[in-house]
């Protein structure tokens, strides 16, 4: 009988250990979220809301990189476009460009711009000093706003990258204005 009891307690011990393992893996699933964000931050894929520091301001005049600007709207009654579609820059130069955004609705709306880079690997070499994407933007009814982006391209940019696209997508921040009844937009 005692052998059976010993067996039972052995079984129970293993059960507890394996259950802890299962619970830990459930936690691990959620841990993947910050882990993924960390990887994206290190590789610069998703560097969203904070200004970068310049590590090396040496201008590399031997290379000329083409940078294209792109704008997307996600479910917002806004007009949004870059004021210049392409610039050619030397890595290390401080460049300021601007986007223009206009609220075509007759009520204030808040949006958040999310940057994205193509090719994705170039994101980590794109150092933004100032960007409208660092904060939420609230536009009054019919307001038109010019928003600058100041950036430096890190000279450590891999040699095989010659063209980079910086793309912003504006998303509506729900909740801020969602409580307001949505009337048919009159446009401009």
């Amino acid at each position, binding site marked *: 009988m005692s052998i059976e009891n010993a*067996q039972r307690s052995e079984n129970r011990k293993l059960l507890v250990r394996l259950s802890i*393992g299962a*619970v*830990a*893996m459930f936690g691990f*699933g959620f841990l*993947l979220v910050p882990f993924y964000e960390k990887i994206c931050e290190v590789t610069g894929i998703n560097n969203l809301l904070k200004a970068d520091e310049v590590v090396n301001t040496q201008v590399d005049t031997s290379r000329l990189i083409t940078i294209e600007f792109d704008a997307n709207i996600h479910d917002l009654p806004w007009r949004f476009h870059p004021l210049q579609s392409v610039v050619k820059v030397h890595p290390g130069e401080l460049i300021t460009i601007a986007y223009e955004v206009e609220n075509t609705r007759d009520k204030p709306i808040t949006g958040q711009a999310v940057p994205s880079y193509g090719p*994705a690997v170039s994101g980590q070499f794109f150092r933004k000093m100032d960007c409208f994407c660092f904060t939420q933007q609230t536009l009054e009814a019919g307001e038109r706003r010019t928003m600058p982006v100041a950036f430096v391209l890190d000279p450590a940019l891999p040699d095989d990258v010659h063209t980079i696209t910086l793309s912003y997508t504006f998303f509506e*921040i729900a909740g801020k204005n969602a409580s307001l009844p949505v009337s048919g937009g009159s446009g401009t």
Partner: protein
Amino acid sequence: MAAVTPDHLHDHHHGPSGLMRWITTTNHKDIGTMYLLFSFIMFLSGGVMALTIRAELFQPGLQVVEPEFFNQLTTMHGLVMVFGAIMPAFVGFANWMLPLMIGASDMAFARMNNWSFWLLPVAAVMLIGSFFVPGGATAAGWTLYPPLSVQMGMGMDLAIFAVHIMGISSIMGAINIVVTILNMRAPGMTLMKMPLFCWTWLITAYLLIAVMPVLAGAVTMILTDRHFGTSFFNAAGGGDPVLFQHIFWFFGHPEVYIMILPAFGIVSQIIPTFARKPLFGYASMVYATASIAVLSFVVWAHHMFATGMPAQGQLFFMYATMLIAVPTGVKVFNWIATMWRGSMTFETPMLWSVGFIFVFTLGGFTGLICAIAPVDIQLHDTYYVVAHFHYVLVAGSLFALFAGAYYWLPKWTGHMPNETIGKLHFWCSMVFFNITFFPMHFLGLAGMPRRIPDYALQFADFNALATVGAFGFGLSQLIFIVVVVKCVRGGEKAAARSWEDADGLEWTVPSPAPHHTFEVAPVFK
């Protein structure tokens, strides 16, 4: 897969009778039977969905179902077959056979065993019932990618809860299996003397414990994104839809091996029996299984080559994926070496096993071709992929399940399955399987995307052929019901050692296996 628990041994069985007996049973054989029956019912329901899909695709244009319902069908076919049919079927085999194979009287936690089974019908009702809620079942694909899955209606929430419940059931089942194998082996049965089926299930159970919770986490995040304003996968709130794919496939790729490793185990039991020769390279089989399991954790992003990951990422996941071909190859070589210079006979279980090796390996080759990242850019999300995973899941897992069912039916029912009907079942399945899925390779190469209800005209011939094959395959499975019913009702009496050269403890108990076996642990030499 069959209600086969012997009734004439009732004198050994004290407890409620009738329905209550099945609801309250803690006997591993009863529970195994229920698992098998449940999975066969789910297999038929998933099959009906598949046939509806094939009927719609019989010719171009919309004839049978609307696109929205078509998407629900493809999604539910995937979920039902993976979580309802294949996985519970293997757990059923584990319940029935593991204690018999290692000389244990029952599973380690008999009551928990009952629970892990009875959660399944609850989940199945939720899943299938979601067809009837407003908006219908989820139509986001079985992979449930956001943001599409966030758009879905109530059916999606039901599917998420069903996945949670099935996940809990799988984890409890897996824990039970690990504890049973590690703690309850008969004296003398060291780990390296265990039948290979036990080894593959031990490793599978660890995989289940490791990845089912991750899936539960992923679908929970979708749930909170849908209803509680989080934005794990929503770019507007700083999330990323691709993150879900990483988490999902971190579960999803080991899941693929969860569905195939026990199949390897079954085939490794059957081939030595009918070749009348011990399994070649037992130790290397164990190591190969373990290395497949380990590698399965570092290949997940090969499902995501088209998402646009950096070149380094593509290279890493391509190399890692190709590496899996090595242990898989070792397994196939070992099986063939087992057959080599044996004295083979081809009863139904052996036919299914040889068929398994042949057709599964074809699926392995297409897998290798898909592993080559640049080629996969062309093949991703086309019918080529559909062909590939049906070759490994139908010809792989399902054929092995049938092989195992024919092999152990004598032990379950006490009667030999009818060889003629069994062979008919095999040959019909084999022929129609290939008629259904082989043309899909060509469809995918020529550019037909998956998950579409309607297609361009150049794909018409092969689709018509595939549909004919699918109906043939579906109908062939009804033959199996005939075999099982005949086998339960009567037939040639099975000896304790039902197959001439079968080896293992399960063949030392009478056929059918009495309600209680190995109350006193046998000594294994």
